[in-house]
């Protein structure tokens, strides 16, 4: 619903219809939240002045955890990320308490790690309050000692990689507590059998772990590449590596290592993957390559994706190119092609966001 609401141009809607809509929402906001609709839509309507500010307090009373933080975030200037991160870490701690066993896995509607990754990538780890970061790293350390399955620890490894990559990007040493937590993670995979919703496999666990260990200097890129090649053709592994690729490319470029070229080759292998879900993840890596000496290679990959059969993959190119680090010459080359795309939405967004 929030997407639909964001597409309404309220200036052209006549007063009668507008008040009909606001009356309906004001009467039913409780029901809307109770029916499981995200609170973002209400925040959006309040921020646009369509709903009265007197609704803020009762709505907040109905919300808790990351939902409440997200509501505040949308209503505020969208610059105070700390309550959001704080709520996400608390949620992650609570979820780990419940999933701290090897026989059973409870899946939650809220994914706190997506929020953690969002905040860490947006603000950078050194811009965050030390206390919350300490809590996050303690959570990682505690998780390493639990017997929780891959379904729980996998997303956490993703967040650990995001944190490590942030230190690398900011040219700061990775704290010992993070390296120690990464080093303590079990190397063998433990999946809850018959519960494969997360698209995980033994090999994907190995690739994820090796990637995080490589970022912390505990393993080398060769091992990751070997693990990937030994499971080539497996969707889960390819997807896990494609997610880690931007971090790895950034890391090896900063180290000035020869491994950057090998990883660029692996990225082009991933670009040829038959699964569109994997290909969707590669443009992010290609954008990372644009900032390295291998920029021409990254550019060629992006051009390849602009012609991909799957519109979702082409949309991912668009999103990746929104990154401020992408030079205008690359951005305009992508825009020129996407502006002629057969898909209306792609044409519209290409013209709107890549101008």
């Amino acid at each position, binding site marked *: 619903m929030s997407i639909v609401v964001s597409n309404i141009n309220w200036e052209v*809607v*006549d007063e009668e*219809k507008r008040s009909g*809509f606001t009356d309906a929402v004001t009467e*039913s906001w409780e029901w809307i939240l109770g*029916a499981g609709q995200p609170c973002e839509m209400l925040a959006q309507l309040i921020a646009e002045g369509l709903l009265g500010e007197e609704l803020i307090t009762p709505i907040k009373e109905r919300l808790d955890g990351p939902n409440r933080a997200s509501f505040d975030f949308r209503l505020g200037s969208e610059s105070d990320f700390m309550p959001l991160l704080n709520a996400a870490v608390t949620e992650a701690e609570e979820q780990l308490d419940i999933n701290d066993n090897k026989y059973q896995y409870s899946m939650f509607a809220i994914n706190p790690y997506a929020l953690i990754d969002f905040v860490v990538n947006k603000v950078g780890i050194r811009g965050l309050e030390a206390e919350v970061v300490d809590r996050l790293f303690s959570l990682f350390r505690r998780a390493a000692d639990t017997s929780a399955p891959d379904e729980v620890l996998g997303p956490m490894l993703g967040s650990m990689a995001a944190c490590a990559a942030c230190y690398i990007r900011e040219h700061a040493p990775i704290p010992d507590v993070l390296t120690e937590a990464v080093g303590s993670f079990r190397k063998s995979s433990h999946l809850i059998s018959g519960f494969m919703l997360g698209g995980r496999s033994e090999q994907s666990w190995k690739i994820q772990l090796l990637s995080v260990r490589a970022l912390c200097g505990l393993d080398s890129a060769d091992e990751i590449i070997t693990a990937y090649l030994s499971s080539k053709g497996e969707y889960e592994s390819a997807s896990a590596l494609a997610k880690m690729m931007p971090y790895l490319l950034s890391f090896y470029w900063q180290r000035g290592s020869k491994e950057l070229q090998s990883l660029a080759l692996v990225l082009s292998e991933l670009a040829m993957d038959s699964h569109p879900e994997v290909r969707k993840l590669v443009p992010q890596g290609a954008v990372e390559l644009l900032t390295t000496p291998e920029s021409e290679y990254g550019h060629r990959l992006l051009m390849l994706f602009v012609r991909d059969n799957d519109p979702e993959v082409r949309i991912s190119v668009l999103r990746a190119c929104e990154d401020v680090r992408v030079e205008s010459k690359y951005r305009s080359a992508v825009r020129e092609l996407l502006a002629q*795309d*057969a*898909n*209306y939405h792609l044409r519209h967004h290409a013209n709107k966001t890549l101008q």
Partner: protein
Amino acid sequence: MAAYENAIQENLLGLFQSEKRWGMRAACGSAVNGDYFDAYRRLSESLEQAPEGDSWQRGVALIDLRNYALLKGDKGSYYKEQEKLDELKSTVIFPDGEHYQYLANDKLRSIEAWKRSLSVNGGGFNGGHKTAIEYIENAFFSAVIYGSYSLMYSARKSMTDTLLSLSKLYEDPALAYHALRLYFIYGDEKAVRNIFRCDWPLVANMVSGHADKLWEAAFKCGGIEPAKIRCACVDLLASYFTELPMPNIRDFLLDRSVMREVPKQWAQALKSISMRLDSSVLVDILVTVINDRDSFAILA
């Protein structure tokens, strides 16, 4: 062209010739040309003249008759032939389901043969591909009527794939449109969504004034859940077509029965079209959803 027509004739008519069914060849010839009235007439006549004894063959002919009646849109004849068939079934031992299976396999084999002959002769019959579409559509209808689900699925897939490749080969958007129309007739939402995966230059070629026809086809489509197909159609039109049948789309999205029947697909269609709908229409839709709590609960 001649080679192509021969291949079609051999593959289609040879099938019936070898079985020596009375009058079926002529009837089938008419059906292939899309003249189901003539097909029905010829087969009825030949059936009246047929010797009694061979009940199995009679039964098979009755199945064809019933189907031709359906294709020419004559429900009265359809029920009449079905009644005769039921009557025959009570006196003749049909191998349980086997003849249906047998016929379905035959149809599938002939479709595959056409597909092969099209790929062999495809480059040679300039312009002949338009005739090929008619043959393919007829084969499709036969397969749908006779086939089991898996056979129908194979038949659909092989025919639409052929249409799309021909469309690319001849750079003819009308063929892609035919493929889409068939997808709608299948009544299979996944099949409609498959079109999103096809070559984008091909889809770009299709943006040429077919929106109204597609919408019409989507509304005539059958299948288990036609509303799903219509939602997929909205999604498709929103993504690829420049001019849209807006009043139809608006009425469709405001239809509460659709919201309740296929909430997920309805929501996807609304999301997709929302950028192109008039803002006041969007407000109307949202107010309808919010005020209709049952629909809203399902959507949420």
